[in-house]
């Protein structure tokens, strides 16, 4: 027999009450857990995916949309820009390097990105097998893509038009897998990467087989005969001056739009912040109610238990032990609530991720523990102690002889 066991026995003697209190607290805490996990991974992912990209240049429209589509591959692209114009802008002396992107196709919901080898370098991609593309219609798969679609090097597939799955297929031009990347935990895990030329040729009406046998450009812009479009440019600045001058220059002097990832992400977090605050507020209310519910449960049970407490005192329990007995009940309840809450939170996130593999939650994981989650346990236990404080104090002050003669 010990104090913990004693308190536990009293809790399980009222299973419904105990379960309800644990569940209520767990619900509140699970919201916190999900928020914590999502927020952490979201910010992490957002920052990681945008690393090395100072500016995105694309068609006019919403700057946030441009960032979301070109860096995070979530939203739809804003439209296309003429290659010629993109090349002209890139010659600006404030620019260190540009990576062109051609978006708009997918395979089984995974986006096909036409680009050059600099893109792989930007994300420090390493090859698990095979190598980068050298000819049109050769592709490199991100780790998750290869896993989900069960593709190996040498396999071929046909892309479809559009960025969601199942629109019309480009059957004349099958893609051939030449390489598969290692898992990086960034957006490229979920992308199918190929040359700019592949994207262009997919949409061409005529079939010119000679150009298909020409090697593609591995950096810079590909050669193009006639007018070609690209979707956007990922820009790296040459110096800090560029951050001040370049966006303004591009936005005012050309038909193009420049958007800064850092700025747009901050704006996005501000927008999401309202939702997060709301969810946190809701969770807080539930936790306060759970705390009150625990308080009421302990307070009510104390009425029936005064005699039990007096008996404990007569067989040798000190006032402190009786106090501890009640406090421990609060602690056990909230500790279990916290553990259950975290479990529910992780499970909930797991379900979200499983059902949303290609969407905005792609690359998230529920199988992951944050140190901040330990604080959830600490906060919960504090709630338990506070809720038990008044009942415990009453237990402490129980007058034994008066109680026993009642």
């Amino acid at each position, binding site marked *: 027999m*010990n104090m913990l066991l004693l308190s536990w026995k009293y809790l399980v*003697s009222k299973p419904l009450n105990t379960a309800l209190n644990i569940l209520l607290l767990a619900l509140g805490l699970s919201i916190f857990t999900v928020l914590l996990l999502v927020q952490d991974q979201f910010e992490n992912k957002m920052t990681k995916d945008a690393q090395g990209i100072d500016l995105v240049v694309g068609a006019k429209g919403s700057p946030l949309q441009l960032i979301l589509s070109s860096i995070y591959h979530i939203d739809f692209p804003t439209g296309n820009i003429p290659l010629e114009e993109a090349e002209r802008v890139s010659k600006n002396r404030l620019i260190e390097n540009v990576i062109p992107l051609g978006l708009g196709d997918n395979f089984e919901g995974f986006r096909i990105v036409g680009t050059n080898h600099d893109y792989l370098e930007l994300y420090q991609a390493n090859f698990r097998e095979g190598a980068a593309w050298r000819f049109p219609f050769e592709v490199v798969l991100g780790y998750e893509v290869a896993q989900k679609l069960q593709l190996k090097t040498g396999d071929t597939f046909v892309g479809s038009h559009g960025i969601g799955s199942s629109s019309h297929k480009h059957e004349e031009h099958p893609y051939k897998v030449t390489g598969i990347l290692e898992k990086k935990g960034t957006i490229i895990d979920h992308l199918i990467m190929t040359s700019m030329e592949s994207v262009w040729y997919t949409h061409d009406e005529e079939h010119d087989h000679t150009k298909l046998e020409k090697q593609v450009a591995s950096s810079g812009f590909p050669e193009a005969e006639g007018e070609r479009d690209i979707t956007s440019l990922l820009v790296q600045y040459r110096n800090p001056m560029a951050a001040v001058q370049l966006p303004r220059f591009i936005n005012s002097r050309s038909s193009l739009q420049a958007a800064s990832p850092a700025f747009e992400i901050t704006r996005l977090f501000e927008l999401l912040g309202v939702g997060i605050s709301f969810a946190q507020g809701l969770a807080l209310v539930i936790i306060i109610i759970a705390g009150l519910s625990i308080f009421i449960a302990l307070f009510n049970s104390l009425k029936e238990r005064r005699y039990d407490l007096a008996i*404990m005192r*007569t067989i*040798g329990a000190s006032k402190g032990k009786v106090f501890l007995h009640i406090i421990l009940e609060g602690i056990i309840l909230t500790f279990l609530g916290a553990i259950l809450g975290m479990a529910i939170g992780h499970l909930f996130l797991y379900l979200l991720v499983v059902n949303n593999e290609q969407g905005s939650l792609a690359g998230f994981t529920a199988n992951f523990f944050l140190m901040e989650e330990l604080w959830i346990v600490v906060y919960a236990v504090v709630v338990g102690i506070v809720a038990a404080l008044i009942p415990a104090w009453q237990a402490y002050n129980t007058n*034994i*002889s008066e109680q*026993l003669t009642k």
Partner: protein
Amino acid sequence: MLRTKHLKFQYDASGEFTVDDLSLSPGDELLILGKSGSGKTTILNILAGLLPPDRGEVFIDGVSIYKLKGAEMDKFRGKNIGIVFQKPHLLKPLSVEENIRLAHYFVGEGDSNKVDVLLEELDMSAKKMAKVATLSEGEAQRIAIARALANRPKIILADEPTASLDDENAQAVIELLKTQSKKLKAVLIIVTHDQRVKEHIANRIYMGGMI
């Protein structure tokens, strides 16, 4: 073993009680009789270390118990005084065994086979794992006695232990208390107004005047 000196207490506004000094040796028995409202439960509480008297002292084994402080006093009570109430008041969430073990735990004694021995003596071994709610009144009272005896107390105090029992059970409980206190060489004090108890114990004092 148990000695009182100039005990005085106020039961209610109606008056002050003075208790004749008691001096009991190991194995002694004492019946405290009196009408209800005569303060006999109060004196029991005083002897049990549950209620400080207005004046006077209680000595158990030479220790003036009301000079002990807080947890010390609680532990002393748990170790040396066994109290049996009119109702068993077992802790319902616990099993029979756990009720008795709790008494060991509170005085800082580890687990041992004492529980088995004790239950054997009271002929309650079969009920060791039983839930308290499944016991009959008589059985529950025996377990309550087992709990009071768990730490081999030097003083056994019983407050109307037979009041809610039928003749058969009352007889059994009295006998149990007597044999066990003899065995433990403990002082047995029973507060009662139950006629069935009176025949068993010769040594008695009356509270609130003679009946």
